[in-house]
């Protein structure tokens, strides 16, 4: 019993320590430029979770991160380092814009079609990386980043040309009212329910189905997977495709489920970096889709609260992304808990 408890608590402790390191290091970065970290973090915390409106808004920020975290997590489970969520998410956002804004469909059907089309485009953009990995052994770190940048320019092209809103060069046509998720409060929409359901579905896929078992086995021990008759090619393909669907959903969430714009900006301003932030979220959530949901709420709070930090204390809100990076570096060190424990004992 206590061993089992230890297995559950230890990862939480590790994540907690890493988050603490990130926040302390962020404080030093503020001190370096003469800001008061205590005031800044207080403003952040109160802004993010100090009111109902703040909590709703933080959840709205968390929504896309929950699924971009799945992209990375499902990759890690198959021993892949899939950092292509960013580009796949752009494609998803574009897909949602195309079906949501340029096609007329009845109310319920429109929403479903737009969401599914967005997810499929995300998966489609993940496919080249999967094929190159399986066929030629091209490392996914390089291939997915190249695909991210190609996606950036391709989607910018589409927004600036065929799908631009007439008279407003800076953005694409907005999703029609029939393709918008109902608003719960502030900018939070029912999209969050779809996203959480997707995370649970991926959890079931990974831990309750044969293909999920195969995927995790390939990730843990490719040799054993081979003897057990598992196919690493199939596992890699499934991992990339599920990741692509997740990233596509993340893109859709910002178009069909995020007032007030309901559309994609040509600078990608409203979706930029969501894919990369998902990497940190996945690692804080210990590469578990449900863990990622909670980590995303934490990170959504940082993102939303960061704006208050900027408004009240003047600290640029980009600092939040820097904290994310430091947390990831801290989490890369498995020894960190052991080092701290040893120090305490001596």
């Amino acid at each position, binding site marked *: 019993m206590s061993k089992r408890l230890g297995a559950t608590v230890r990862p939480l402790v590790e994540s907690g320590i890493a988050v603490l390191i990130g926040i302390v290091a962020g404080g030093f*970065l503020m001190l370096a430029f003469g800001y008061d970290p205590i005031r800044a973090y207080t403003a952040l915390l109160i802004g993010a979770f100090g009111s109902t409106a703040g909590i709703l808004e933080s959840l709205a920020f968390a929504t896309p991160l929950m699924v971009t975290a799945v992209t990375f997590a499902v990759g890690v489970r198959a021993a892949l380092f899939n950092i292509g969520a960013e580009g796949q998410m752009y494609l998803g956002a574009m897909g949602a814009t195309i079906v949501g804004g340029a096609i007329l469909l009845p109310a319920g059907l429109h929403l479903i079609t737009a969401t599914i089309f967005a997810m499929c485009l995300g998966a489609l953009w993940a496919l080249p990386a999967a094929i190159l990995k399986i066929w030629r052994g*091209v490392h996914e770190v390089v291939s997915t980043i*190249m695909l991210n940048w190609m996606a950036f320019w391709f989607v910018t092209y589409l927004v600036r040309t065929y799908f631009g809103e007439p008279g407003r060069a800076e953005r694409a046509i907005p999703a029609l009212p029939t393709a918008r998720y109902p608003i719960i409060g502030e900018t939070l929409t029912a999209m969050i329910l779809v996203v959480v359901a997707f995370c649970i579905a991926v959890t079931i896929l990974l831990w309750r189905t044969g293909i999920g078992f195969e995927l995790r086995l390939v990730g843990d021990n490719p040799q054993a997977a081979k003897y057990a008759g598992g196919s690493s090619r199939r596992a890699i393909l499934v991992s990339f495709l599920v990741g692509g669907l997740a990233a596509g959903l993340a893109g859709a969430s910002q178009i069909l489920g995020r007032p007030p714009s309901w559309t994609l900006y040509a600078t990608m301003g409203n979706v930029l970096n969501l894919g990369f932030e998902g990497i940190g979220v996945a690692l804080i959530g210990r590469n578990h889709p449900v863990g990622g949901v909670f980590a995303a709420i934490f990170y959504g709070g940082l993102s939303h609260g960061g704006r208050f930090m900027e408004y009240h204390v003047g600290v640029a809100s*980009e600092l939040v992304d820097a904290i994310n*990076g430091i947390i990831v*570096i801290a989490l890369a*060190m498995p020894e960190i808990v052991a080092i701290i424990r040893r120090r305490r004992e001596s």
Partner: protein
Amino acid sequence: MTIPRRLQWYLIGVVVVSVLMYVISLAGLGVPRLIETGLLAMTPLALAAIGECLNEQAGTVNVGMEGIFLITAVLGVYWAEVFDSGLYGLLLGSATGAVIGLVFGLICVYGKANQVIAGMGLNLLALGLGPYLLMSIWAFPGIHIFPRELMFQPMYFSMGDGYFSISPVTIAAIVLSVLAYLLLKRTLLGIRIRAAGENPIAVDVAGVSVGHIRLSMCIVGGALAGLGGAFMPLGWFGGVVKEISAGRGFIALAAVVFAGLEPLLALVAAFIFGFSEGLAYTVVVSPGVKEIVPFYFVQMAPYAVTLLVLTAAIGRKRLPRALGRPYVRE
């Protein structure tokens, strides 16, 4: 066995480049300007790739070069403005990169970190730290243009009725790739570096610290990437913006993979990738071409070329056996 294959690659490269040059001159584009741009684009890629070759030969992978590029590009400009000199900007940018390399090395060697995750963490850190520094130093989120006098000037050679310019940093990158090659293949230290990546136990038994070798290569790798990062604004663009690295750290990584950790081949790969970028810039501004090919597709070219070259070339190299694994004494 390996030498003829390498020669093959060089020959293919030379033929491809010559054919391209011929086509380009037929199309009426300026070949010297094109090569100049190609060499400029090559320089940061080559510097980072050479450093990463040494780094990986010793057994540490650093996928965080993109992050080092971004941080040192911003800080390089900052140092240049503080000391009122482009050269100081380059040198201190390189020193900044060395410090980042040192910290990364400590985390990987003594923290026994998962190197890919730590490197990605470095990239994510830069994704936030770059814009944060831009905002905190110059209080402006967009492009920061520094005074023209701070640009690190290239050397000009007269050539027929025109001229040809090349940055001393580019020449340094070429020289460094040869030095790195000689270091690895012809010196005792080079043997130790390669052994640290191949068989760290043997290095340890011989009484040489694996940790020190790996750490010093991390510092060298960081310093070279830092020089490349500072070169981008100070020797090339004339300004700094938060998207300045634009995936180049990963293109450098692709060059390392393509080269199978050989510094000379890494230089060739960096030239191919840099040249494709230079070609893209030339096409963008060429009358007759720019009307047909959308600007956005031209922007994709360097990434597509990287992916294609990597796909064509991969699968024939072997990497050091202990690459990416922390050394634990038993």
